[in-house]
């Protein structure tokens, strides 16, 4: 009689947990491989070369730019795609599922084939392509980690966008006022914490729907930052909004490695913090007692409560932690990259971060991979936009969003959220 039912309804399709491997991957591979074979290979312009710069001028070892004959190389790479598609079909036929590394391999071959085709007759620098991709990924990674921390504990964090924006804003203002970029970084964390605190209070204490709070918080942060920007930052930029950028720190020896060195080991402290945070969260979530508790709260809060875990305390802490992480990521927009705050600076990156988290299946490493992929696609679009390609840049920009729709619709492997994600816990 008194038992309150908060059981989530079953999925409308009532899909069974697939025991048999799915044919979705081989079919998707086959379609994409055919596209590659026909567009990039057979229909590609013959007699063109695609040139990729490998070294930057500051590298210790200079490597000559790689000049590839466009059509044959694209053809070869698309044939690799065809072979992988055939192999995956054979695997499924044998009753085995398609391993992740095969998907990654397919993606790399497909992207390279596309690149060789798109760059035909032009030259791009491979290193700066990757550098730009990483720069665009940093806020995504932080945002996605924030999402992972919150949602693994069962609180949906739509407010990533607001946390990033708040971090970007406060870090710029505080860094300018105090004259210290590192105090600015701290301020970014505080800003993210503040937004997360409001989210936690409303979602956990007042049990307001988490999606509503998140959506409203995004709008609120946008409004407040825009208002203060118009009122203070824009008219008097020198007093409020000229923080400058963090210096790049070169890691000795490692930064000398061709391609990887300048991309990975010549970065600001925020990027190094990102590497550390990803690894820390991954280990903490899956290898420690703390992580087990967090995940149990996100999957089955009642059981966790029975075992003496304070469900809402764990959730509150995790939301705050997530906010701090996202706030730090927001500082990358200002202190790590541009050196000043501008209106609506996060520009929807928080939602792409949300997509990256889902695409990465709620795991830190997966989120990192997805964020890098999205950053790469975004940067590729702007690089190709400069040299001019057959594909309109708007379609490249759509890619992360369409991929995410496919992911949640189960068209590219099933994603599953923590079971109690979004359900408030009320002790009965």
């Amino acid at each position, binding site marked *: 009689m008194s038992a309150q039912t908060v059981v989530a309804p079953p999925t*409308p399709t009532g899909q069974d947990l697939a025991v048999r491997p799915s044919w979705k991957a081989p079919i998707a591979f086959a379609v994409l491989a055919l596209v590659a074979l026909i567009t990039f290979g057979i229909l590609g312009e013959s007699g063109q070369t695609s040139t990729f710069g490998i070294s930057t001028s500051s590298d210790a070892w200079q490597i000559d730019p790689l000049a590839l004959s466009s059509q044959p190389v694209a053809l070869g790479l698309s044939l690799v795609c065809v072979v992988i598609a055939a192999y995956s079909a054979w695997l499924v036929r044998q009753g085995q599922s398609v391993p992740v590394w095969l998907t990654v391999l397919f993606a790399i071959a497909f992207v390279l084939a596309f690149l060789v085709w798109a760059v035909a007759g032009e030259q791009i620098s491979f290193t700066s392509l990757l550098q730009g991709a990483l720069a665009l990924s940093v806020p995504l990674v932080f945002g996605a980690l924030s999402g992972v921390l919150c949602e693994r504990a069962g609180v949906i964090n739509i407010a990533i966008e607001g946390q990033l924006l708040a971090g970007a804003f406060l870090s710029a203002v505080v860094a300018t006022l105090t004259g210290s970029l590192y105090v600015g970084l701290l301020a970014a964390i505080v800003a993210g914490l503040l937004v997360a605190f409001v989210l936690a209070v409303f979602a956990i204490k007042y049990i307001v729907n988490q999606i509503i709070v998140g959506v*409203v918080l995004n709008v609120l942060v946008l*409004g407040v930052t825009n*208002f203060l920007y*118009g009122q203070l930052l824009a008219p008097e930029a020198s007093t409020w909004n000229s923080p400058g950028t963090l210096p790049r720190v070169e890691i000795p020896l490692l930064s000398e490695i061709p391609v990887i060195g300048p991309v990975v080991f010549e970065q600001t402290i925020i990027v190094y913090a990102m590497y550390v945070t990803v690894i820390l969260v991954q280990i903490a979530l899956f290898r420690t007692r703390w992580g087990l508790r967090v995940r149990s709260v996100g999957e089955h809060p009642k059981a966790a409560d029975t075992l003496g875990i304070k469900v809402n305390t764990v959730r509150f802490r995790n939301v705050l932690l997530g906010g701090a992480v996202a706030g730090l990521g927001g500082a990358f927009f200002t202190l790590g990259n541009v050196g000043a705050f501008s209106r609506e600076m996060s520009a929807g990156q928080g939602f792409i971060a949300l997509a990256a988290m889902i695409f990465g299946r709620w795991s830190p490493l997966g989120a990192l991979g997805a964020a890098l992929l999205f950053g790469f696609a975004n940067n590729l679009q702007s690089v190709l936009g400069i040299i001019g390609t057959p594909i309109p840049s708007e379609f490249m920009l*759509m890619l992360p*969003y369409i991929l995410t729709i496919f992911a949640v619709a189960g068209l590219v492997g099933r994603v599953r959220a923590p079971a109690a994600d*979004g359900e408030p816990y009320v002790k009965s």
Partner: protein
Amino acid sequence: MTDTLPPASAPEEERPEVPAEETFFQRFMRELTSGSILVTILSVVLALFIGALLIAASDPDVQDRASYFFSRPGDTLEAAWSAVSNAYSALFTGSIIDINEYTVGRALRPLAETATNAAPLIAAGLGVALAFRAGLFNIGAEGQIILGAILAGYVGFGMHLPTGLHLIVGVLAGIVGGAIWGGIVGLLKARTGAHEVIVTIMLNYVARFLIAYLLTTSAFQRPGASNPVSPIVDENAQLTRFFSDSRLHLGFVLVILAAFGVWWLLERSTMGFEFRAVGANPNAARTAGMSVSRTYIWVMLLAGGLAGLAGVMQVLGTERYLTAGISAGIGFDAITVALLGRASPWGTVAAGLLFGALRAGGVPMQASTGTPIDIIVVIQSLIVLFIAAPPLVRAIFRVPVRSAGQPVAGLQRGWGA
């Protein structure tokens, strides 16, 4: 474990009409539909007050005088008062009535501007509210508006039809455009269980890039224009304007009709009953023989169509040509409008008028007092935030808990479901 409990809930005997097995969603709906008016008003007051604090704190004049606050505090307060009262009175004269004008028509022009701004907000808000009632979160009004505007606009400037017919085809095309964009969400939800919040957010971006792309193509870009804008829609396809010196157009009538339609659908039709049943408890609805999947598809088709109508008003009524910013954030405001209207059709109309007034008054406020228009966004989001948490508002204003003191909660489902 006191910290895990919700705040002060009323004793059981004071609200006997509430069954003990009430689910979160039912409670959400009850709170949405029967929440106290007092909390709504107090929320608006509180939001305006915080907005006033922001205006005062960021005003340069106030900051100057605050440097000698402790010797002459009156100066600071006076400056703060004048900053706030100037901004808010400009907001009022810009949205309701301009008493400095001498003719009645010109004095009431702000009111017409309010209605012009409110019309698309109400249409899109109705779409969000309708989806709410069926238990769906339609964050995608923005994208649905864009699709509606694309199709309506294309009919408007790309086709040349006789008077009357042109407008009808244009309006219908816009509604269909929005319905398609919403229908995708419903279909994916029904067939694969993809969560509508994620799909709608993603489709918003897809729509935004789609319109940006289309406006660079020869079919959509205005001949001779260097910036991405479409040609002006034909006279035949424009929503008629009522007055010569105001933008108020036929769309406002359409939106009132739409509100009536949604009210009839929800309260008087079988289909609306199914929507509400699915919203209240999908499992029970399924057990009762209703098709939950079909309901999801229909709800999202209709919700998208209503948002598409908002796009129609933007392109055929207010702006009369397509730009990449045609949706003007209406889709996001629509969410707050629907929440403020507590997901009821007439509540949404009232909330849409309020937000329309804020939008209409914001422009002259920025022009005359220099207060950035973004304060409107702050006030709007604060209103919704406070309304969502009645216990907080009650605590601030020390309003005693009389009846249902339960916080708003609802739609408590995970991403995957």
